[in-house]
């Protein structure tokens, strides 16, 4: 038995409870909650842990998602490590404080239990909610497994509070498939997590505290007053921190792997790609079925691989270029739509990488898994077949169109 194995504590949980367990290990000071499907069991689990004394945190039951994030911003400005989770319409309602958080450089972790958006009415999984806020300035990481959720929530704090980053992190897990999917996973030791995260340092740069009086967020910009330069300085600093976070995310994943023995690809995971000719790009829980399909096709001798995007914002362009440059054709499976481009957002970013680095390969857009639709091995097989033909249709291929 290895030293590592001796410390293993296995639990059987769904993705929502895994997120809650990860949060508890990160020891937040303030947790604000408002329930929404499919996130509810996550905040219920956290509330129960606080009620039972297992987690020593201030629980704020506030009257809506807008106030959830607002309260947490106040808490962070007073020095608190904070957490919440939301989905779909909740995220939409939270939008006003949500767009403000990165500009204030307030670190936090928020789980997005991803859900397709209205309308038509639906309460099931899809990436549309998270995709609608992809340009706001939060770091977005998508999880594939329940274990990855637990681990990434903890890692998220390390990334967010890194003194060179100071940005909020969304750890995204798919509604239904991951939120309610039960599996065994390993629960790290509290001591390990404490040592990994180190001391909290949330408001060293901006604070609302009588001991350090300052005016927070005065008017900046326009051509008068302090002039455009200060606004540009803020924006530029924000985008530079965002770009730099790719490096920090990689370091943090490597550190976590060293401590726990669990390696999660930080930016882009290449699965059976080295000698592949075709690849599918995936995001989130669909990757499991995609890998199964890949294995099946490999068994029959086809040279196929999977490119999983874990960090979607900022977009890991270099890592994506490295992956794409190994194959001759690619398909991108999106679980949301970009109305402006009649395809999916991940597809658009893939095209950007292809164009930016002068790669020469056809790319086919697929849309699947909307509103909780299952993306099966058969769907991925069909996608691989279409990529193999190399014919790009005028619009996206809707894989669940006839389901």
């Amino acid at each position: 038995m290895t030293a590592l194995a001796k410390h293993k504590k296995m639990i059987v949980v769904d993705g929502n409870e895994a997120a809650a367990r990860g949060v508890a290990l990160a020891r937040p000071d303030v947790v604000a909650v408002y329930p929404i499907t499919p996130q509810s069991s996550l905040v219920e689990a956290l509330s129960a842990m606080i009620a039972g004394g297992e987690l020593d945190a201030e629980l704020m039951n506030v009257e809506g998602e807008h106030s959830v994030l607002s309260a947490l911003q106040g808490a962070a400005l007073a020095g608190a490590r904070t957490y919440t989770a939301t989905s779909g319409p909740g995220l939409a309602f939270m939008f006003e404080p949500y767009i403000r958080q990165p500009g204030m450089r307030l670190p936090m972790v928020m789980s997005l239990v991803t859900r397709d958006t209205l309308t038509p009415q639906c309460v099931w999984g899809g990436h549309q909610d998270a995709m609608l806020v992809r340009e706001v300035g939060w770091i977005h990481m998508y999880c594939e497994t329940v274990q990855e959720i637990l681990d990434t929530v903890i890692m998220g704090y390390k990334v967010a509070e890194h003194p060179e980053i100071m940005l909020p992190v969304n750890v995204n897990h798919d509604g239904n498939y991951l939120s309610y999917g039960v599996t065994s996973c390993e629960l790290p030791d509290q001591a390990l997590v404490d040592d990994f995260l180190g001391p909290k340092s949330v408001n060293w740069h901006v604070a609302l505290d009588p001991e350090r009086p300052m005016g927070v967020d005065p008017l900046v910009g326009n051509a008068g007053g302090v002039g455009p330069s200060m606004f540009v300085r803020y924006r530029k600093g924000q985008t530079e921190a965002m770009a730099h976070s790719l490096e920090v995310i990689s370091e943090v994943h490597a550190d976590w792997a060293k401590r726990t023995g669990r390696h999660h690809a930080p930016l882009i995971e290449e699965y059976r790609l080295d000698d592949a000719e075709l690849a599918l790009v995936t995001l989130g829980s669909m990757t499991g079925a995609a890998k199964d399909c890949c294995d099946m096709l490999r068994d029959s001798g086809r040279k196929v691989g999977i490119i999983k995007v874990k960090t979607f914002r900022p977009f890991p362009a270099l890592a994506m270029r490295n992956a794409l440059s190994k194959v001759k054709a690619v398909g991108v499976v999106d679980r949301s739509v970009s109305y402006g481009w009649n395809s999916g957002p991940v597809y658009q970013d893939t095209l950007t990488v292809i164009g930016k680095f002068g790669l020469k390969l056809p790319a086919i857009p697929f849309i699947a898994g909307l509103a909780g639709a299952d993306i099966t091995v058969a769907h991925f097989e069909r996608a691989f077949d279409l990529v193999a033909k190399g014919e790009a249709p005028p619009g996206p291929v809707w894989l669940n169109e006839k389901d």
Partner: protein
Amino acid sequence: MSAYNSLTYNASLCVGCTECMKACALAKTGDATNLDQSRIKIVPAQEPEKFEAAICRQCGDAKCVMNCPSGALTKNGANGVIDWNADTCVNCLLCTVGCVYGGITYEASVGHVAKCDTCGGDPACVKVCKSGALGYVTTASIYNDYGDKEDMFVPGLAACQGCNSELMIRHVMRKLGRNVVVAAPPGCIPGMGTVGYNGKAGAKIPIFHPLLTNTASMLSGIKRTFERQGRDVTALALAGDGGTSDVGFQSLSGAAERGERILFICFDNEGYMNTGMQASGATSFGSWTSTTPVGDKLHGKSTDAKNLPMVMMMHNAAYVATASSVFMEDFYQKLDKAVEASKHGFAYLHLYAPCPSGWRFPAGLTIDICRLMVESNFVTLWDYTPGGGLEFTHPVDTPKPLDSYLKAIGKYRHLANEQVDRIKKLLEDRLSMLKRFQKA
């Protein structure tokens, strides 16, 4: 420092019971029957059943002091009392000649003059006066208590001429001091430059722009975090009526329901005055604003104002009060109660802030308008606690005509008679509704 604390006497209320004289005699001689030595004398007036009081008014330009050749009489700068010094008095009695109030007289039984010393600021006579004829006014108490306190805003805030909000936020912060975090949501208060740069511009205290929508929830998070850290820091909102009653209302309601330990002050100028005088939910019926204009089809705001203080009372907040910048002592008392209440629950103060720019009246008349709006019963000053009920702190039983208030303000210039009638009815209904919440 100069102060003018003094007794007041309202002859129309006096019933001639002479209880005040007995109390004074007891306080000064130990014997309530020594009425000769009472320093207040109630005497019959010329009209039958009417009375006058001979009592020192502690004048600011006291004739007795001017007449005194020996320096025995002096005006006390700290409390305003005219002090008499037995050691330097030469018994010339020139002081008694100077006083037209009979406030300093020769007492034969003790062989020198005697006068009221206000019992050190807690006059015995006032305490026993059942008719309410005697009172004690502490005109400069605010100055005395807060004059030396630090102004937490830098000079040169850019409020419009005649704005009382700047006056009031300076008062509030002199009182509250530095151990505070201030939220100033978008509106006139940050618009005048309160959220500045690190004490050099704006304020010397921690201050921030919340969103227009989330003042109460951001403060909730701040307060909870300080509570968790074991620190007693006041979480204060200086908000306008728009951010309070419209888009900010959900977060306000939630924070009040949760009993967050916050002091929320709303400056009600009946609209979005900072951005061009648009109507808010708190704009009064009939008002002209830039979004409730006056024309052939529309005649100003067609709906009534949302009455925020009443709404907050229905939230069972720990303390709710309305206040006016005309009645400053009343305001300070309410501020005291609100600060205290905010240590254990949600405290809400609603401050009336007539706006010369947006309401169309001369900037020099703000205080007159503030007074008139109270004295015409357009607004009512009261406070409320869940246990104690509602108390009117400046009841106006014989109000000035509403027309005198409406006619003083340009935004009501167009009102038709039916609109004025509707306002009158609204005010009557509101007053009778408030009375139902009065203390038993």
